[in-house]
């Protein structure tokens, strides 16, 4: 039965809650860039090098999870009609804990100090658990249970499992507990983080956003219903097979086959999304669409690269295989889509909050800038090309670190700096207009 009393369609959190996440993320990108600029080819020696572990977490936690959590706190009332309880407190503490926790984690990787590792785990653990709890409560109260909300629930469960696996792996890394096969545990953590948390969130959000904003046909019902579950269940089976409970020769082959199902699911999704986008009714140039298509092409490309590694041992055994795959997925796929989405969410929230305020004050004299006046197409496009070049150079750096690591770092810093500037300019315009709408100040015209 639908409960009319609990339905809330208001944009719940104040603008400062999502914005603190969005404006912090590019800073982690910039710091990552400076680390590579300073250390050059060193991080690319192996995916297990402390620097590479640190860089990976700066991006996945400091940038991507940062933006994804901030966006979820914002979007749940719209997508699910269910506001996140205590959103200001949860949002503010998650933000602080995620910043401190990520920095401590990177420091712990670099120094190997158990105490710093424990601090990092407590900060990240408390922050993300509070987030997961609040979001789960909101999802339990949910009025509608479409494919997007269903997929988001799976993504949040995957985040919890990623956190758990990562925490155990980190305790092993810091020597606090003894773990017999740390590499397998780390792989499970990585698989659940990338394919579970980030991948499932990407898929379920796409089901909603791709048809709506580009005016494309819908994803077919069977894709919406089965794909997230298929990936989630396959990842669970993969985890069980890899956990070492059963020891037999055929187990690793079976695990590989199950992982293939996951990769097949993502390939299907990427091709389907590209197909839908090519049939879009809305033909005007759109920078977010550029980012999104790049991400989808690289998702299919990464899947193909992984498969070639499975089929051809020389590819798999190349020193750069895992790092190139990681760069493809993190920087190429998830970062592209997240970066592109910021250009829709941030200008829209600026406009939306200002217009709400204008209507409440009935102050129609002030002209509210439209979305493209908060971030211009030119500025966003320029950043897209920087992002693309940074990705291409990073991919080259995975293969030839000595030549390409520093140029890649410079481009990556430039791309993140421009993103930060674009977002700050939007916030600046928001503030300037907000002041005009202030009934008490001298500047105001109300």
């Amino acid at each position, binding site marked *: 039965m639908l409960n009319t009393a609990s339905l809330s369609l208001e944009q719940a959190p104040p603008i400062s809650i999502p914005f603190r996440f969005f404006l912090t993320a590019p800073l982690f990108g910039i710091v990552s860039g400076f680390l590579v600029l300073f250390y050059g080819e060193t991080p690319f020696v192996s995916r297990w090098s402390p620097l590479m572990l640190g860089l990976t977490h700066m991006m996945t936690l400091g940038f991507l999870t940062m933006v994804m959590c901030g966006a979820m706190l914002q979007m749940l009332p719209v997508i699910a*009609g269910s506001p996140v309880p205590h959103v200001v407190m949860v949002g503010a503490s998650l933000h602080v804990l995620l910043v401190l926790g990520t920095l401590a984690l990177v420091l712990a990787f670099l120094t190997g100090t158990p105490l710093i590792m424990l601090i990092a785990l407590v900060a990240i653990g408390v922050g993300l658990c509070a987030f997961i709890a609040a979001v789960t409560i909101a999802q339990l109260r949910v009025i509608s249970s479409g494919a997007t909300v269903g997929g988001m629930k799976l993504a949040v469960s995957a985040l919890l499992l990623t956190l758990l696996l990562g925490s155990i792996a980190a305790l092993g890394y810091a020597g606090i507990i003894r773990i017999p096969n740390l590499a397998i545990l780390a792989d499970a953590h990585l698989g659940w983080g990338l394919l579970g948390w980030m991948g499932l969130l990407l898929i379920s959000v796409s089901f909603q956003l791709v048809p709506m904003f580009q005016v494309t046909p819908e994803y077919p019902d069977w894709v919406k219903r089965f794909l997230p579950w298929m990936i989630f269940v396959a990842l669970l089976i993969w985890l069980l097979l890899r956990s070492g409970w059963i020891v037999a020769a055929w187990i690793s082959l079976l695990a590989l086959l199950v992982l293939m199902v996951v990769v097949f699911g993502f390939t299907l999704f990427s091709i389907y999304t590209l197909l839908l986008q090519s049939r879009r009714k809305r033909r005007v140039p759109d920078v977010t669409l550029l980012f999104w298509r790049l991400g989808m092409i690289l998702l299919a490309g990464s899947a193909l690269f992984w498969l070639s590694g499975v089929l051809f041992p020389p590819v798999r055994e190349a020193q750069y295989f895992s790092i190139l795959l990681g760069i493809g997925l993190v920087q190429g796929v998830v970062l592209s889509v997240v970066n592109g989405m910021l250009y829709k969410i941030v200008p829209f929230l600026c406009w939306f909050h200002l217009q709400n305020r204008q209507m409440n004050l009935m102050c129609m004299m002030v002209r509210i800038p439209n979305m*493209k006046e908060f971030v211009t197409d030119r500025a966003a496009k320029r950043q897209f090309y920087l992002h693309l070049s940074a990705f291409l150079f990073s991919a080259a750096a995975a293969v030839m670190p000595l030549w390409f690591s520093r140029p890649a770092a410079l481009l990556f810093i430039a791309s993140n700096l421009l993103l930060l500037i674009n977002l700050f300019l939007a916030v600046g315009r928001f503030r300037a207009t907000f002041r005009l709408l202030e009934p008490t100040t001298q500047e105001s015209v109300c």
Partner: protein
Amino acid sequence: MATIITIMAADHRRCDEIFSDAENLVSTKDWGEGGKAFAAFRDATLNHFAMEEERLFPAFEQHIGHAMGPVQIMRMEHNQMRQLLSEMEQAVADRDDTRYLGLSETLMMIIQQHNMKEEQMLYPMMDRTLGEAGAEIAQEIHSS
């Protein structure tokens, strides 16, 4: 049987398509056809608002016996969209495509998040609460 969700969601899609036509034409600076397509989109949207504000929302609120917060928010968002529509009308009159495209992008965002709330929550809720009466209103809207 006609339901509110099927009829109204189909009307959302119809408005989206006219919106896209108008935007595509304006982006090529075809003001003759673009102006006509914009007018068609504006009329279709205002008609959709009227169906909700004059028929659906009052019937629903009468049934549950009080004015409802979420319905109020839908009305407020309609007003936000009306304001954008009138700014777009000015942009068409001024032949200002940059301004039109900035406004249409903004309108598209608010329309879609508004539609999301209606299609995922409000319409299904109305269908279940109003039952037969809801189906009748939907049928009337459909045939009008």
